[in-house]
């Protein structure tokens, strides 16, 4: 039992931190650029991607002994696409405003490299429970970066936190201005770049491995 727990912990740490999909494998960047203008959209996108990653891992891993190897990518995509469409339908029904802002990006989870990457690299070779944990872990790793990027972009770009203005008026009176570039895609690029640098210079990052 103890062994089991540490085994899951190992998978979680790997997905969330050590081999973080955005900061280490540099995957899923396009959606990270697009949906991080506001924290609310980033949060919804994170939850959607984490759930799809977890359940697609679970389903593909359960089918791994049955899937013929020459159509495995098609089957993986069918599973992922179906889960994404269902997620999109649910968002449109219950979170219509946010789903409109996320526009095509929820649909594009289908082509998000993190999900197919986990299906190919992990779910096809491991048991369903491990694959589920691995999917969730990678989703959380992605979410962590997304939320961090969105935090800086929303704070610096619009002076808000989850849509609530947090920068007091006197700061503006003293001459502070919202940074327009943070709202645009280049702002996200800078922040992701800085986060990748930060992550990799912390203990356990690439530069330490090489030494």
């Amino acid at each position: 039992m103890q062994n089991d727990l540490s085994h899951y912990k190992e998978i979680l740490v790997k997905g969330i931190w050590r081999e973080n999909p955005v900061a280490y494998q540099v995957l899923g960047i396009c959606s990270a650029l697009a949906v991080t203008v506001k924290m609310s959209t980033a949060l919804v996108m994170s939850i959607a991607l984490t759930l799809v990653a977890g359940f697609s891992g679970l389903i593909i891993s359960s089918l791994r002994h049955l899937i013929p190897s020459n159509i495995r990518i098609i089957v993986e995509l069918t599973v992922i696409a179906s889960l994404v469409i269902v997620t999109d339908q649910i968002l449109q029904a219950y979170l219509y405003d946010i789903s409109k802002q996320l526009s095509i990006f929820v649909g594009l989870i289908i082509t998000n490299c993190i999900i197919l990457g986990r299906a190919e690299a992990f779910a096809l070779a491991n048991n369903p429970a491990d694959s589920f944990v691995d999917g969730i872990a990678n989703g959380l790793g992605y979410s962590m970066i997304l939320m961090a990027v969105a935090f800086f972009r929303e704070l610096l770009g619009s002076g808000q936190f989850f849509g609530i203005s947090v920068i007091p008026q006197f700061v503006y009176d003293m001459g502070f201005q919202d940074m327009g570039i943070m709202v645009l895609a280049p702002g996200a690029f800078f922040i992701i770049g800085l986060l990748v640098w930060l992550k990799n210079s912390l203990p356990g990052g690439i530069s330490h491995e090489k030494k």
Partner: protein
Amino acid sequence: MSDKKQSKRSFKNSRVYVVFFALIVALVFSVLITSAATMLKPLHQQNRILDKKTNLLEAANLLPDNEKLTPEKIQTIYDTHIREVHADPRGQILRNATGDSLQLYLIHTDQQVQGYIVPISTRGLWGKIHGYLAFEADGETVAGFSVYSHSETPGLGGEIESQWFQDNFKGKKILNAHNQLVSVNIAKGKSENLPENLQDHYVDGISGATLTGRYLSEGLEETLTQYEPVSIIFRQKKGSQTHLETLLDE
């Protein structure tokens, strides 16, 4: 043992098994998607109708800024201020649709007509752009603009749904000094860089979205030409407040 494994592997890749497996997977997941879509359809429709009404109110400037309204509240404002009508090709306003009539919304307060809203539907860069353009009762001043559905690039053409772009339209004129229809156009860059006589007919463009702007300009002109007879009727009543029912009875 290895023989058995071998035969199992080849069976898994045999044509019959592959086709059978693909069919089963396709069937199971299409049932999943269909049931999700069917079960959530009523909610989707409700959301879409509410969104349409919110956008009509937004174009007419009837929504308070920065305030989240409940669906019931939006419904109430809509019912007291907006009336869906139709116009025949000569610009006469009708209660009900006929074969070749145009859809149109009247804005009214206490039964006094304040203006009208024209639905906009044009091509964009990637897909259709749908929105509303509201006019004041003089038939030439734009009161507001809103977009409720588009598939432009987020951050570029997608900016057409942002507040600054839509506020841009307020107060623009669709008639020039000679009372000819010039529509509202999207400028390349800022409208203040244009010659003075054009500034009233151009709104600031979105940098990096030249094509979206061009298509939207074309679409607006086309729609406004179509609705010109209606606008003429409003212009003839210039200044005078019109009672909703008298306009409808004519």
